[in-house]
């Protein structure tokens, strides 16, 4: 069966034609670069997204520190991840890239800061 996907790896948004057999990708066309192939496979077999949000601080100048997962996490876990983020609190100064939560949700992915506090 052929599915149509829009690749989200870059602003070009190539429309990919993906042939799927038994839940596995067998052929991809329409991509202008190799990233599309990777995206197609992941989107069909294990759709994942980078999660971005912000974490509350305590005692710092910035009330919220923006954060992201350093790698995509399964789409199905996004809402759970958000609930977990709401429970976090940053109480000391952070540098760009500092790990806020290691092995976030046990997914082998870190939640990192995307902003420096002064």
């Amino acid at each position, binding site marked *: 069966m052929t599915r149509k996907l829009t690749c989200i790896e*870059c*602003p070009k*948004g190539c429309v990919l034609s993906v042939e799927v057999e038994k839940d596995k990708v067998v052929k991809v066309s329409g991509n202008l670069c190799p990233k599309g192939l990777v995206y197609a496979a992941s989107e069909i077999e294990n759709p994942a997204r980078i999660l*971005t*949000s912000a974490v509350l601080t305590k005692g710092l100048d910035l009330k919220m520190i923006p954060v992201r997962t350093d790698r995509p996490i399964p*789409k199905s876990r*996004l809402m759970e991840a*958000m609930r977990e983020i709401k429970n976090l609190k940053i109480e000391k100064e952070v540098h760009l890239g500092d790990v806020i939560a290691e092995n976030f949700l046990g997914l082998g992915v870190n939640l990192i800061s*995307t*902003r420096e506090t002064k």
Partner: protein
Amino acid sequence: MVKRDLVIIGGGPAGMAAALSAHKNGVRDILLIERDQYLGGILNQCVHTGFGLEYFKEVLTGPEYAARFIREIEGIAPIEISLRSFAVALTKEKVLTYLKPGLLQRVKARALIMATGCREKTREMVHIAGSRPAGIFTAGLAQKLINIEGLLPGKQVVIVGSGDIGLIMARRFLLEGAQVKGVIEIQDRSRGLLRNLVQCIEDFEIPFYCRHKIARIYGNKRVEKVSIVKVDDNLKEVAGSEFQLACDTILISVGLIPENELIEMAGVAIDKKTNCPVSGELNKTSLPGVFVCGNSFKVYDLVDSVTRDSEIAGKLAAEYLRGRK
């Protein structure tokens, strides 16, 4: 009154790129004024990814993109940064007046780069029948409240306009636990990037209504519901197509307006329809020595384009200054 070679108004991605480029091209006296307490501009509240794919070939969030430039700028002594500084007046002799807590300063600039970005189109600029309750926000204001202040503006949201900011905020509200009842777009397709349609609308199955508009807002104190109606190819209401959506929040994301009132004050020619400077050449204005870059020059889709455009402006300013010596 102080004299400076180059004054840059705006410390967001445009202003920072212009400052760095001017410095790279030989300018050694640069004053960068920024109204907020931090550099970074609008990027500080854009916690999502999608920045830097072209410029850095990386997937970055707004703050991460900004950090690249902030780090570089802070290491350069000839670039003086004045935060919490707000430009209030500009004359055609390039005398700028700005305010900051405790100080009113007048600066005579030999060259000036405007990097003031945009403001959003608001409900008030388009007549939407109905009441004026609490709960109506521009997408950017909602974004700031959520990402910078940790405040959720509402729990049941209807988004008017499918530009990128509206799409991004649809996802943001959902992730914060709110319900997004729909995105209402008057044109026949979304105005935003395809990738945002996928990541923000399709991923979460948010109802997307093309060729629709809000007919009426209900609610005395707080938004209670909206009525939505279909429009034809001439954007006229289709009779009998009206339906209602209960909601407590309406997000308006229908367009950006370049902020050029300051240079207009100095007599620079501005296109009345777009609010952009009338310009024969890229980044130049009708006033020699006054340059505009970034979104206040032209509304760009990507910050990467803003950076490139601003680097050109910085270079032009440097050339102009060399020519004046």
